C-alpha cells in the first residue's frame, strides 16, 4: 500500500450507526470520518445521543446496526479479544469523571498501566506522579481520595487517567462542563497539548463554543440521530445551517425544539 493510501484510511470511520432504546431511536444512521491525528468536536443538544455515540465506539453500548472501523477494521465484526485489544488503544474521559472512589488518586491514574503493562506498584506510582504533573497537579495530590478533590481537580485527574497509557484514540465527554472559565481554558489547553504530544486522534463532546473553537480541527453537529453539519471551527458561527446557527447562538426559537416531556 502506498503512503497516500495509508493516509486515506481514517483513524475512525463510522457508517450507518443506529441505536435505539425501546421506542426511542437515539442514533439514526451516523456517518462520520475522523482522520488520524485530528481533533473532532461533536456538539448537539442535551440528550441528542453524543455520549451514546462514543460509548458505542468504546464497546460499552452495543449498536443495533452500522459499522465502526478503527484503522480500517470493523470493531463490531471482531471477536471479544480483538475488541478488547482495540479498546486498549483508546482512552476515555467520562462526563462525570467516573473516578474509582475506593482507590487513591494515584492508583486511579495508574490503573490502566497496572492493568495492561504489569508494571510494579512503585514504578506505577512514579509514572502516575509524572502524568499528574502534566495536568498541573502536585505529587501530593496522588495520596488524596477522589472525594477529597474539587470538581476541577477531579476533571484533571480523570484527564490524567485517560492519557496515562498514551492512547491512540482519545474521547473527552464534556471535559469543561461545570468548571470556571479559566479552569475550562486550562483543561482545553491540556487536551490540545496532550493530543499534539501523543500524536493521538481525539473526539471531544462539548456544549461550550469557546472550548470547541480551541480544541477542534473539525466540528460536527448531532441532531435527531444524525450528523446534520460538519465543518471547520471558524465556520461554526457563520455556517448558514439553521440548526447549527440556533445551537451556537443559543436561541430559543428555531428548528431545535426542546421536548420537555416524552
Amino acid at each position, binding site marked *: 500500500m502506498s503512503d497516500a493510501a495509508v493516509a486515506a484510511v481514517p483513524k475512525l470511520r463510522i457508517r450507518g450507526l443506529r441505536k435505539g432504546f425501546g421506542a426511542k431511536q437515539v442514533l439514526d444512521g451516523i456517518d462520520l470520518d475522523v482522520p488520524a491525528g485530528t481533533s473532532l468536536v461533536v456538539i448537539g443538544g442535551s440528550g441528542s445521543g453524543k455520549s451514546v455515540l462514543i460509548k458505542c465506539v*468504546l464497546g460499552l453500548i452495543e449498536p443495533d446496526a452500522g459499522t465502526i472501523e478503527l484503522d480500517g477494521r470493523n470493531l463490531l465484526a471482531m471477536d471479544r479479544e480483538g475488541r478488547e485489544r482495540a479498546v486498549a488503544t483508546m482512552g476515555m474521559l*467520562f462526563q462525570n469523571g467516573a473516578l474509582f472512589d475506593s482507590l487513591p488518586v494515584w492508583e486511579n491514574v495508574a490503573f490502566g498501566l497496572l492493568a495492561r503493562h504489569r508494571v510494579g506498584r512503585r514504578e506505577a506510582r512514579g509514572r502516575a506522579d509524572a502524568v499528574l504533573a502534566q495536568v498541573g497537579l502536585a505529587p501530593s495530590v496522588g495520596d488524596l481520595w477522589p472525594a477529597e478533590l474539587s470538581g476541577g481537580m477531579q476533571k484533571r485527574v480523570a484527564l490524567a487517567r485517560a492519557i496515562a497509557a498514551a492512547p491512540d484514540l482519545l474521547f473527552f465527554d464534556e471535559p469543561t462542563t461545570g468548571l470556571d472559565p479559566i479552569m475550562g481554558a486550562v483543561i482545553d489547553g491540556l487536551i490540545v497539548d496532550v493530543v499534539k504530544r501523543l500524536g493521538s486522534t481525539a473526539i471531544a463532546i462539548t456544549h461550550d463554543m469557546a472550548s470547541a473553537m480551541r480544541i477542534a480541527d473539525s466540528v460536527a453537529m448531532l441532531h435527531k440521530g444524525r450528523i446534520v453539519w460538519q465543518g471547520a471551527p471558524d465556520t461554526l458561527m457563520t455556517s448558514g445551517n439553521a440548526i447549527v446557527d440556533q445551537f451556537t447562538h443559543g436561541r430559543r426559537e428555531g428548528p431545535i425544539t426542546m421536548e420537555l416531556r416524552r
Partner: protein
Amino acid sequence: MPSLNAIVSGAALMERLLDAVAAIGKAAIAVARQCGRITLFAAEGVSQIVRPPFYPRMVGRSLAEIGYFSLPVVALTAIFTGMVLALQSATGLARFSAETQIASLVVLSVTRELGPVLAGLMVAGRAGAAMAAELGTMRVTDQIDALTTLSTNPMKYLVAPRLLAGAIALPLLVVVADILGVLGGYIIATLRLGFNGHVYLENTLNFVQTQDVVSGLVKAAVFGFLVALMGCYNGYNSKGGAQGVGSATTAAVVSASVLILAFDYVLTEIFFVR
C-alpha cells in the same frame, strides 16, 4: 336459547379469565427469565475466579468486609441464640422430663441449622447490602464502564473476588458462631438452670457428630456465595441514580434472604434425608 346479553357477558368473563391467565403466565416468564440471567451471571463470575489475572487484593478486601467486619454481629446473634435455645428447651423438655437433652438440642440446632442460617441472614443484611450499594454506585457513576476502558474486566475485578470471598468467609464465621452458640447454651444451663458445666460440655461433645458440623459449613459456603451473588447481581445491573441503587440494595437483601431459606431446605434434604 341464551339471550344476546348472556352471550356477551359470557365472552367478557372468558376474556377476563384469559387476561388473568396471561398475567400469571407473564409473571412466570419474567421469573424464569430473571433466574436465567442470574444463573448466567453466576456462571460468568465463577469462570472468572479460575482464569488469570487474579486480584488477591480484591479478594482480601472482600474477605475483610464480609468476614472480619461481620464478626461482632454474628457473634452476638450466635450467643443469644444459644441462650434462648437452652432456656426454651428447658421449659419444653421438662414436660417430658428430658432436661438432660438440652445440651444435645442446642448443639444440633446451632451447628446444623441456626449457625449457618442466622449468620447468612446477618451477612446478607450487612455485606450483601453494602456490595449492592457499592457496585450500584459504581454502575450509575460510570465507574464500571471506566474499568472496561482501562483493560479490566469488571466481572473479574469486581464480581469474582466477592463470590470467592463470600464462599470462604461465611464458613469461617459459622465456626465462630457454632462455638459461641454452644457457649450461650452453656451459660444459661449452668448459671440459670443449675446444670453441671462439666457434664453439659461432655454431653455436647459426645452427641455432636462431624457430619453435623461439616454439613453446616457446606451450607454456609453456599449461603455466602448466594449473598455475594445477589449483592453483585443487583448492584451490577442497577440503573437510574440514587433511587436505583437503593432498590438494588433492598432487592439484594430480600432475594439473598429468601434464597438462603430455600437452599437451606434443599441442602437439608440432601444431607439428612436418605
